């Protein structure tokens, strides 16, 4: 893809500069802790690209700190750039050793992606993701409300969500062009399409259904806005990533999340098969698949684990709000391959519907 090469080149300079700096920093750090790295054959560091914030901090606490103590390999986090990671997936030399990428970006063409051994694979990820995904986690897309809003119980499924007579009040809904999230899928489920017949998505039918509820929607531009819309009473129900509900719960609000027909979205990290530090990358992948360590991450973030053994380490309370907990029996999974293949159409049609 030649159109990306310019951005990539500019970004590569920045990454190179960052890498040099981190190398310098790494050398000085190593000098002080030679005894810890002496115990393993692993060396150097791993450049890790994700979206930062509290999630990255949780990874540092749950995985990276102890990995460094054990192996002497430092995981250096950097902020991910779309143009760079898409280039790596296309076969560019890897500026990032491990980077976050949705299944729809990775699965259509895995010829440049590193395969990891079974010992590092998460059994809760879909089978087509398992051979490639490191540090997998599962987030949810669901409807939720402040429990007081519906004292007699809120909407039970997406049909109820569209029933504004039975459940009055505005609904918070993703309103930026790229966040078509589960919008079409939700509309089709509400219109009577069975979960297994969703793909290929009938976009026309979906937007027609969405039109019926449009006047009752309040659009948000960024996910945290959904929290504010709920707590200010401006909306009765919000459809959003479940981390936002978790944040409200963490802040002491009584929130009900409807897990029936919620979307479970597996995500995680991949590496290029051109990385030079394959041993270190695989060691980290195994490290992150350890159930006890993953339980620390799960508890801090509310994101679902990729390893089923993690649930043995979680309290009942925590389990209830984890997307892929065994109690949640009716979850829906996206068809990432279809979504990946039709990504541009989806962005453009959702932009068009939003602006309509």
């Amino acid at each position, binding site marked *: 893809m030649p159109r990306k090469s310019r951005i990539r080149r500019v970004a590569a300079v920045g990454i190179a500069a960052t890498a040099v700096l981190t190398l310098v920093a790494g050398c000085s750090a190593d000098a002080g802790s030679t005894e810890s790295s002496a115990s393993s054959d692993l060396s150097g560091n791993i450049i890790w690209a994700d979206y930062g914030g509290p999630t990255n901090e949780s990874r540092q606490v749950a995985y990276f700190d102890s990995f460094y103590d054990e192996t002497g390999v430092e995981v250096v986090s950097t902020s991910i750039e779309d143009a760079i990671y898409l280039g790596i997936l296309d076969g560019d030399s890897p500026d990032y050793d491990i980077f976050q990428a949705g299944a729809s970006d990775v699965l259509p063409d895995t010829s440049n992606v590193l395969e990891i051994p079974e010992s590092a694979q998460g059994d809760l990820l879909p089978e087509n993701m398992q051979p490639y995904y490191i540090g997998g986690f599962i987030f949810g897309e669901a409807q939720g409300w402040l429990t007081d809003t519906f004292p007699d119980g809120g909407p039970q499924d997406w049909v109820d969500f569209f029933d504004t007579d039975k459940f009055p009040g505005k609904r918070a809904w993703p309103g930026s*062009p790229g966040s078509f999230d589960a919008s079409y899928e939700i509309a089709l489920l509400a219109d009577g399409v069975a979960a297994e017949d969703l793909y290929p998505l009938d976009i026309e039918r979906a937007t027609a259904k969405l039109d019926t509820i449009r006047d009752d929607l309040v659009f948000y531009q960024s996910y945290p806005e959904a929290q504010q819309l709920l707590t200010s009473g401006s909306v009765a129900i919000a459809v959003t990533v479940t981390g936002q509900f978790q944040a409200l719960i963490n802040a002491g609000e009584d929130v009900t999340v409807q897990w029936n027909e919620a979307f479970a979205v597996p995500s995680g990290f991949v590496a290029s098969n051109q990385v030079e530090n394959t041993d270190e990358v695989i060691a980290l992948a195994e490290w992150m698949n350890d159930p006890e360590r993953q339980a620390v991450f799960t508890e801090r973030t509310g994101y679902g684990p990729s390893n089923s053994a993690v649930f043995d380490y979680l309290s009942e309370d925590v389990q209830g709000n984890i997307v892929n907990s065994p109690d949640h029996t009716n979850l829906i999974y996206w068809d990432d391959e279809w979504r990946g293949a039709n990504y541009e159409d989806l962005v453009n049609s959702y*932009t068009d519907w939003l602006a309509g």
Partner: protein
Amino acid sequence: MTTTPVTVAVRTASRSARAAGSATESRWLLWPPLVFFALALGAPLVMLLIQSFETGGSAYMEMFDVAAFPAALVRTVVMAAVVMLLTMVFGAFYALAIMGSPLWLRLTLLAALLLSLWTSVMVRSFGWVLLELPKGALYWFLNLLGLRDEPLDFYQTTIGMYPAMIAVMLPFAVLPMMSALQSIDHEQLNAARVFGAGELLTFRTVTWPQIIPAMISGGVLVFVMSLGFYVTPLLLGGPSNLTVSGVINAQINQANRPDLGAAMSILLVGGTMLVYLIADRLFKVSEKWG
């Protein structure tokens, strides 16, 4: 008798020498801003142009295949025109109110205007969001007075968007009109009075004609700036008031089509420059700002 032409010649020569010297000086002074604009404005624009042609120019055709784009183009121009007209009207009242008020009120109005100008657009727009939310500040106030107990239907509508956009743009319309009002010669007003003109006639024949040019140049500035509006309509108008800038953002950040985004940007920048050049020809806008 023979001395006169010589003196004249000398005087002329020295005058032209002085003129030449000052011209050289001013040319030197022009360098810093020229370099600055070449780097800060020219270079990114060239980069944008290159980006837009990375797929061999097909982006200029394909951008019209993005269904939301042509509609956003029309919507943006209409929106900018409406904001311009409303801002000119409100701005004229505001400027007249500032000039005609007692000192304390004049200072208050002026302070409000400048404070608004110095505050980030993001902050001002978000303030309006808090005001307009279905159960926001406005609802709270109406509810307090016992006037409303249903949530407001104001947020994310076209009607809800304009007050915020006018508030954001108001300083750019008021300031030139204020300076025009200030420069009116008071002798002209006195003369009008002396010849028996009432308040209204004085206003119509003396004041009004002198603020019209400032009003137009303020309006053109507001129109041109409104073409690039992004944050305010996005936050207050909701997605159904998506502007060109919003579509550009979607192409670059979400659709991963930087070439389409660049082509759309070139069209927007080019269109904006064209509008400004035409307005400048018609109304001599740059003179008012020079």
